[in-house]
């Protein structure tokens, strides 16, 4: 949930809460006032009646007979039967009917008290209809609440506008952050803001981005330099070992084998170094991408290079180049990517198996797929196949060796990223792996 929506929702809930509380409070307050007023009114009547009766005890009968004081109130006077305490005013609200002619009972406020006249104690009951008063109170209540409701709605709308205005720079920052895929590729700066917190945030982000960028640049530069500088000493190691080997007839077997291992390791190390150098150069965008490259042609070139291995392994190639894909890019790099994909396929293919190479597409989305019948991609590698130095644990080919530098597919990834191609690997029906490049 977005921050401004959250704040708005909180405000709304609070407002509605206050509204409900006010409504309940108002209801009781208004009711209370109404009853207080009614009671005052009833007491006034009582005082009038007592005054009248004191002045003229005979009028008691008249009052008793007439009953009513007005259309909304009436009086009952009966002989005191001790049911209530004498000389105390008792108020009550009750639903009753004034006469049998009324269909439904109405709410009345009743004052029960005692009255003395002609030395006799009477029970005096004065009734006053509540409804008339309640109508007024309800009107007041409703209009106040309606006003409050309108106020809440207005507040909500205004808040929404104000929030979105105030928070715009914040959301701009958030939106920018969401679009960043690779911090190193991001060279925009977060803008200055006149809101203190957003300004702090943006400045912090700018600083961090700069740090990420520069440390990444440094790292890449370092790898590039280190890989490069390693090659000359490696060259010397290799040639010294070769020199020992060239006199193999004067040496014992163990020395020869050791020198051979030294040489092989130097070669392997230099390949690793070269692969790293290539990857970092690709990542540092040190290649021109302005050549027109025909994927099928490159693939055929690569297949010529790998022909020896394909023949010796008795691998059947099934080529389906129904779609000719032509892309803009660096031929050398694309060649390298396809070489790595195909070499992998050949490497992991069992003898006498089939490798399917196909291109298809609809002009907008073109694909190049290589499917082999090898052991497939091991489960633990599925998510990191294209990462650097990822090799299957104990993932051997049929010769019982763990191959490669672990940089082949990582190079494919870098090259694809540089060109904006997609790459994807999956296991095909449990038999073999399929690698797809999307152009």
């Amino acid at each position: 949930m977005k921050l401004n929506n959250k704040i708005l929702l909180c405000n709304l809930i609070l407002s509605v809460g206050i509204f409900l509380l006010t409504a309940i409070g108002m209801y009781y307050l208004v009711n209370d006032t109404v009853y207080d007023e009614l009671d005052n009114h009833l007491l006034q009547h009582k005082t009038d009646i007592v005054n009248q009766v004191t002045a003229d005890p005979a009028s008691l009968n008249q009052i008793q007979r007439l009953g009513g004081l007005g259309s909304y109130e009436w009086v009952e006077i009966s002989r005191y039967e001790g049911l209530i305490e004498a000389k105390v005013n008792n108020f009550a609200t009750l639903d009753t009917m004034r006469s049998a002619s009324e269909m439904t009972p109405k709410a009345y406020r009743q004052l029960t008290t005692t009255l003395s006249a002609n030395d006799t104690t009477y029970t005096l009951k004065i009734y006053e209809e509540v409804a008339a008063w309640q109508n007024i109170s309800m009107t007041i209540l409703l209009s106040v609440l309606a006003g409050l409701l309108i106020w809440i709605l207005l507040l909500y709308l205004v808040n929404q506008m104000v929030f979105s205005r105030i928070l715009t720079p914040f959301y701009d920052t958030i939106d920018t952050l969401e679009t960043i895929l690779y911090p190193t590729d991001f060279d925009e700066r977060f803008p200055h803001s006149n809101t203190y917190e957003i300004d702090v945030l943006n400045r912090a982000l700018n600083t961090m981005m700069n740090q990420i960028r520069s440390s990444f640049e440094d790292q890449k530069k370092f790898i590039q330099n280190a890989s490069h500088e390693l090659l000359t000493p490696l060259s010397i190691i290799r040639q010294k070992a070769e020199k020992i080997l060239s006199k193999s007839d004067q040496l014992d077997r163990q020395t020869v084998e050791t020198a051979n291992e030294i040489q092989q390791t130097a070669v392997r190390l230099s390949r690793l170094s070269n692969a790293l150098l290539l990857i970092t150069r690709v990542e540092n965008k040190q290649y021109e991408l302005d050549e027109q490259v025909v994927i099928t042609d490159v693939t055929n070139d690569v297949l010529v290079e790998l022909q020896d291995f394909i023949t010796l392994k008795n691998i059947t190639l099934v080529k389906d180049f129904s779609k000719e894909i032509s892309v803009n890019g660096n031929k050398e790099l694309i060649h390298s990517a396809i070489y790595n994909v195909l070499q992998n396929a050949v490497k992991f293919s069992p003898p006498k198996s089939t490798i399917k190479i196909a291109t298809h597409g609809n002009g907008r989305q073109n694909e190049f797929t290589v499917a082999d019948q090898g052991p497939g991609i091991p489960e633990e590698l599925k998510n990191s196949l294209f990462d650097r130095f990822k090799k299957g644990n104990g993932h051997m080919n049929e010769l019982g060796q763990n191959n490669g530098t672990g940089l082949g597919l990582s190079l494919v990834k870098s090259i694809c990223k540089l060109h904006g191609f997609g790459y994807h690997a999956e296991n095909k029906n449990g038999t073999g792996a399929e690698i797809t490049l999307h152009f």
Partner: protein
Amino acid sequence: MRALIIEDEPLLNEELEEQLLEEKFNVDSAETFREAEKLISGDEYDLVLLDLGLPDGNGLDLLRMIKKYYEDTVVLILTARGEVEDKVKGLELGSDDYLAKPFAMTELRARIHAVLRRRFKINENEILAGKLHLNLNHLEVTYDGRSLELTETEYKILRYLVLNKNRTITRIALAEHIWGSKIDDRFSLDFINSHMKNLRKKLGEAGATDLIETVYGVGYKLEVHETQQ
């Protein structure tokens, strides 16, 4: 023949010098751009091994200089930069070949042989190793007059061994020679074995049973004794 080695790493320079001396070259060597400049301006060389990454200058400038004054000098670029642009630039400027470090000395020897032959249009297209004749223009190989039917890869292996006769060629150097340094070595080494098996079989059928010697499982050697020649 006169050769100049321009390489800033002394150990490597020494090694290269030794190799070229073995090949009967008169060798001069330079470790800096300035030294090299002096030597080049003073003398004409038949072969220059040129390292591009010199501490005090760009090797490509030296190449330009060499090609300007001595058109016939063969220049072989050695570089630690596996960079395509340098290779292309070097070849554009007239270098004859390009070797990325680290390379096998046997590979260097094969390359020198090839570029010198190309540059000086050497007419002897045959190389001999005892009774073995290799025609360098075609894929023709005969042993003791009998011709051998070899595949391209087998021919490449044999030629490499002949050019480096009496030396141990490691399988890794052989794999690099045939398939380039891009190929996964542990993957390719096994293929060397099967190619070698076929090659030996063919040689055996022609009567050259023990021509190629295996050196303790690390490599091969084509032994040509003086008595055979």
